[in-house]
């Protein structure tokens, strides 16, 4: 979304009561803003599904043939086509799809013999978990690296970290994943190659680790998240580090930072409380954007680590011409994208009280 909350810079000599009046009317302005943004999201959602629908209808494959497999029979096929609405004109089909979606019905998978929502829900959950882990790693390491680079600008650590960041942006994630697997799983044997959790008996594992809850949890689940999490985190980590650095440097040039230093505040305190806080807005923007990109772009990481997520399910569905799953998945992802962007824009006000919604 290109729209962002107005970061209205208050003029220095604003009337004293302006602040009060604004606060009184803020609640309704806030909700009006939320409503306006949701309204603007609707055409985007319709557009996304329409593009997807149009491309899929232009696709030459015949889903009914796929659906029936070896037992293809012309008579049953034509009946099936009618019952699925595939014989109707394109726009009618699209209208039927929108109608169903507005009731919360994403249709039924051709291949899996399951409702799309039921099929995709667990996969979506798996991708969401991986994305949250990756985003956590990316924020912690990315923001730290950016702060270090900005605080010691033009030092050895600045150059080293920024070189790492460019390398991080340039590394193909699937190759990085393969290298990490080779080193940490195959050669060192510290971490599992793939899968999401321990496949054996949890009670046997409990006895094996000697009754330590942390060790049990580690072998049960946590260790499976380390490699895919770091792999998926690389690119956003690098982007966040670069942006934190440039945003901090921008703020550190300002007068109030010099003022804080002149007052005799310690440098670390100025960097963290004065500079970082005011450098946060662009960082939040990029975190939000990357969250959506990660959630939807985890296909490659999921493929390398055999993670049973949404991305892989979508690629599989596209190859099997399972249109309802593709459409439903695109729809879910677009909704997440819009919602995440809205949340990002709303957090601006939490971080910076000068931001007003309009």
């Amino acid at each position: 979304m290109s729209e962002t909350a107005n970061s209205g810079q208050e003029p220095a000599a604003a009337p004293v009561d302006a602040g009060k009046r604004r606060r009184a009317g803020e609640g309704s302005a806030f909700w009006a803003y939320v409503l306006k943004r949701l309204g603007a999201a609707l055409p985007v959602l319709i557009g996304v599904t329409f593009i997807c629908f149009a491309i899929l209808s232009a696709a030459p494959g015949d889903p009914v043939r796929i659906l029936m497999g070896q037992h293809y029979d012309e008579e049953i096929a034509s009946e099936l086509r009618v019952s699925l609405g595939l014989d109707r004109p394109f726009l009618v089909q699209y209208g039927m799809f929108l109608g169903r979606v507005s009731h919360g019905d994403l249709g039924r998978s051709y291949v899996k013999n399951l409702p799309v929502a039921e099929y995709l829900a667990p996969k979506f959950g798996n991708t969401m978990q991986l994305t949250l882990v990756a985003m956590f790693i990316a924020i912690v390491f990315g923001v730290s690296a950016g702060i270090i680079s900005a605080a010691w600008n033009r030092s050895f650590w600045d150059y080293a970290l920024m070189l790492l960041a460019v390398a991080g942006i340039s590394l193909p994630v699937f190759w990085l994943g393969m290298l990490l697997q080779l080193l940490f799983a195959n050669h060192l044997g510290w971490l599992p190659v793939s899968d999401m959790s321990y496949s054996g008996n949890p009670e046997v594992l409990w006895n094996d680790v000697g009754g330590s809850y942390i060790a049990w949890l580690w072998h049960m689940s946590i260790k499976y998240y380390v490699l895919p999490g770091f792999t998926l985190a690389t690119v956003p980590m690098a982007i966040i580090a670069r942006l934190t650095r440039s945003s901090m440097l921008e703020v550190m040039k300002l007068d109030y930072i010099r003022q804080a230093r002149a007052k005799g505040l310690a440098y670390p305190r100025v960097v963290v409380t004065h500079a970082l806080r005011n450098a946060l807005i662009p960082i939040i923007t990029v975190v939000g954007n990357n969250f959506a990109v990660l959630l939807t772009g985890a296909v490659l990481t999921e493929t390398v680590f055999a993670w049973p997520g949404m991305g892989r399910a979508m690629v599989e569905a596209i190859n099997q011409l399972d249109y309802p799953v593709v459409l439903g998945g695109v729809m879910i992802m677009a909704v997440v994208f819009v919602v995440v962007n809205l949340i990002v824009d709303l957090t601006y006000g939490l971080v910076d009280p000068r931001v007003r919604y309009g």
Partner: protein
Amino acid sequence: MRDLLRQLFRHGSGFVGLVIVFVAVVAGLFCGTLSPFSPTYQYRGQEKLPPGSAITADEARQASYADNGQRSSGTFIWGTDSSGRDVYSRVLHGARISLLVGVVATVINVLIGLLIGTVSGYFGGWTDTLLMRLTDTFFAFPGVLLAIIILATLNNDEVKSVLGSISGSIDPGIWGLFIALGLTGWTGIARVIRGTVISLREKEFIEAARAVGCSNSRIILLHIIPNCMAPLTVLATMQVAYNILSEAGLSFLGLGIQPPNASWGGMLSTAKNYFYDMPWWGIFPGLALALTVLGFNLLGDGLRDILDPRMKVRT
């Protein structure tokens, strides 16, 4: 141009990027003469050889079929893959595919982004609203998914036979990559160009051009677009890196260039299952890919520092 090169040279990391890009372009252009072996030829009995293994003329004769011109002796400096193909030659030919897709898709991105960005920024009003909503829609499309959907659509026998007849020796899958990546990566360019055009629109020289009676199209083509060149160059350089990565990703998923034709993503996808036993097969194409993308990113960073004075923060 000479000035730009001198500034790049002084920039350091930007120059490193330029050198890497230059090497990649040479590899892509002259891969035919530079490769010691055919990229697709399978030498029987020479499978899974580690880097540096030599093949004598005698062995080569035994390993090849009669009279196909593939009998040559030499060294597999980066080893062979599981089918007995020379990894080095395949990586060189992969450079051609990567650069071709990267550049052509970026040209399409730039054309679409420039058109939408200038029209939207210059005319404003409902044209702007409509075009930006369209941009939002494409931007909201989940990741590489749109590219995957487009590729899957084009991946059928009829389309393939038509495309195959016009693409000659190159894998017909490349057309799908051009289209899929060309149609998806333009949103960032469109937005930045729109912003630039909006700030340019109010400048005096545009007003002067309008006052002497220039038409809108003349103003856009001769006065607006030349002034967008700085951000456009930077964005396009970065976009090449992004498109090369996406091409590799799509080929890795088996949707782009199909084996036996050589592409870095495709090589990595088959090498993945042999990575522990024959790491060279996965290391070299991955390294080539990472370095090429790094080169374009460093070059883009350097160009931004030089061309865009607002972003003077050096990396």
